[in-house]
């Protein structure tokens, strides 16, 4: 924005700023997880925070995902505002019982008596050659669960701004940070702060096709849109930002403008969030469509280690361009 002072910053630093601000603003906030303190965080997100806030508020935990996520739920019930860091989404499976059977259900099971203001942050996604047990994209899977909110910050603004809003929420919020984003660098307004967390956002306007995505694939999708522009195809890029609640209105609005939709999702295709989006389009915008909805998802295979195979398993710019190009071409 013209006239706005900006700073050069990485996604990692933006998130660190958000955590620091939360700790400064609210004494009930504390961060807990594996290696968040002395080590500085597996992805160096919390580096330096231990010195600034001390071990009570930057709390290293044993490798006990179920216990420390459950303890986060209990601490939230006890009046705190915990930020629980699960090192990666892959390990969140060890805490799934607590997330699904407690965090997502206690408000309902207690007839509205006990809410759980808990924020869980975790790293998600593939693309770093770390093979099948460290490459899951399960955010869409978590979005299946009523009672949770699922955020996928894909930009510096959202990395910086979603955490504070999530902490104001009376109920559990899960934030999925794509591992490929931490080193992304860019300009961020020096006064950047909290952002709303319930609306999808058009990152690039267009008229021929809607490219619907979130999180780690937003960058690839924007690059694809640029290439498509060079070919005379005007692609709109919709960043969902939040997978639950899904902003169906924004999806329908975009498809109503472009009459075509390609969904780009790093999760597996079967039973995925991309399937949900496709169904919403069919339910709410069927007669707007000039072409069947297309999906570009991860191949249905545990993520392989070898780079050429991993690349082949993931959505890529070329595939997005080709799919959108063919779809628009069908109009003739």
């Amino acid at each position, binding site marked *: 924005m013209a006239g706005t002072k900006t700073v050069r910053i990485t996604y990692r630093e933006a998130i660190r700023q958000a955590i620091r601000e939360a700790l400064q603003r609210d004494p009930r906030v504390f961060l807990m997880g594996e290696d968040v303190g002395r080590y500085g965080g597996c992805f160096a997100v919390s580096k330096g925070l231990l010195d600034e806030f001390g071990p009570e508020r930057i709390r290293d935990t044993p490798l006990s995902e179920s216990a420390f996520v459950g*303890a986060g739920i209990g601490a939230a019930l006890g009046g*705190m505002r915990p930020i629980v860091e699960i090192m990666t989404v892959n390990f969140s499976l060890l805490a799934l019982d607590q997330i699904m*059977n*407690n965090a997502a259900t*206690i408000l309902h*099971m*207690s*007839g*509205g008596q006990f809410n759980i203001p808990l924020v869980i942050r975790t790293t998600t996604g593939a693309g770093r050659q770390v093979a099948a047990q460290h490459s899951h994209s399960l955010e869409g899977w978590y979005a299946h669960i009523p009672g949770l909110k699922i955020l996928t910050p894909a930009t510096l603004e959202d990395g910086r701004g979603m955490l504070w809003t999530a902490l104001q929420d009376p109920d559990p919020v899960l934030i999925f940070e794509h591992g490929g984003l931490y080193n992304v660098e860019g300009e961020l307004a020096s006064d950047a702060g909290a952002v709303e967390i319930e609306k999808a956002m058009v990152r690039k306007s267009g008229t021929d096709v809607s490219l619907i995505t979130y999180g780690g694939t937003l960058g690839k999708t924007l690059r694809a849109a640029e290439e498509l522009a060079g070919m005379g195809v005007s692609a709109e890029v919709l960043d969902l930002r939040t997978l639950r609640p899904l902003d169906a209105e924004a999806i329908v609005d975009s498809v109503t403008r472009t009459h075509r939709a390609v969904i780009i999702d790093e999760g597996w295709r079967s039973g995925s969030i991309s399937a949900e989006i496709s169904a919403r389009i069919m339910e709410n915008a069927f007669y707007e469509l000039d072409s069947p909805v297309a999906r570009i998802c991860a191949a249905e295979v545990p993520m392989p280690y070898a780079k050429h195979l991993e690349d082949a398993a993931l959505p890529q710019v070329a595939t997005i361009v080709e799919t959108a190009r063919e779809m628009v071409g069908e109009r003739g």
Partner: protein
Amino acid sequence: MALQADSPPQSALERQHSLLLLREMLRIRRFEEKCAELYSAGKIRGFVHLYIGEEAVAVGAMQAFDPDDAIVTTYREHGHALVRGVSAPSIMAEMYGKQEGCSRGRGGSMHLFDAATRFYGGNAIVAGGLPLAVGLALADKLQGRLRLTACFFGEGAVAEGEFHESMNLAALWKLPVVFCCENNLYAMGTALKRSESETDLCLKASSYEVPAWPVDGMDVEACEAATRRAATAVRSGGGPCFLEFRTYRFRAHSMYDPELYRDKQEVEEWKKRDPISTFGQRLQQTELLTDEDLKAIEDQVAAEIAKAIEFAEAGTWEPVEDLTRFVHSERK
């Protein structure tokens, strides 16, 4: 020091307290006998797990906890709720599924919740409540509040990872938790000796540096004394304690259990140690209890239960339009 003229002598206080313990155990017994009848009559559905035979544990232990302590328990929790002070009518209405129930009919028998008495539920995942208790205690510690969290669970929980993770975390962070393990010898139908290589439960807790000791769970006074000792230790800030209450469930695991896994003879042997009749006999032998007292208590309890049933019968069904309430908090 001379007693003031109007204060009752020590023996009268003791008698009063003994009668209270007896009355509380009888409240649970008669309430649950009625629940079984109402289940057969189709008034109560779902899973119902009776505590009959184990009453001394909840009644004895609960004497050691203050109103601002927190209670976390399991799906076999009618007894804990009743002794904690969750009203019998609101529990019965919950069993009926009525909106006047303590969880508005959203929880049922396994999920009794009550904010007023800091009763954090009825958790129906074995060991699922332990991490919550750790977190509630962590919140107290971080906020400098001198109160404790009592966590009840069955011996089946010691086979779960969450037991070990929670024991370690509570000890590591010196958190004020009294872990109350109700060892009734069977995890549903699996005998402890068939599922654990080490059947000494206190040894397991001790291995985490948690002070642990066994208690005769059929003796209400022993249960009270042991829990008072544990609560005093925990309140002094030394970290958690673990109590193994050796008890026995006289009824089936739930309403669908043909009890193929244990001998009738074994059940009969344990029934000789019925916590209510043995305590009643002891009180009569020491002339603390007369037949008239017992009749008065039984009448009182019967009246309370009759009122609870009346309340539940008169209760109303939550309108179906409200189905999706309490998925997210209604206050923002």
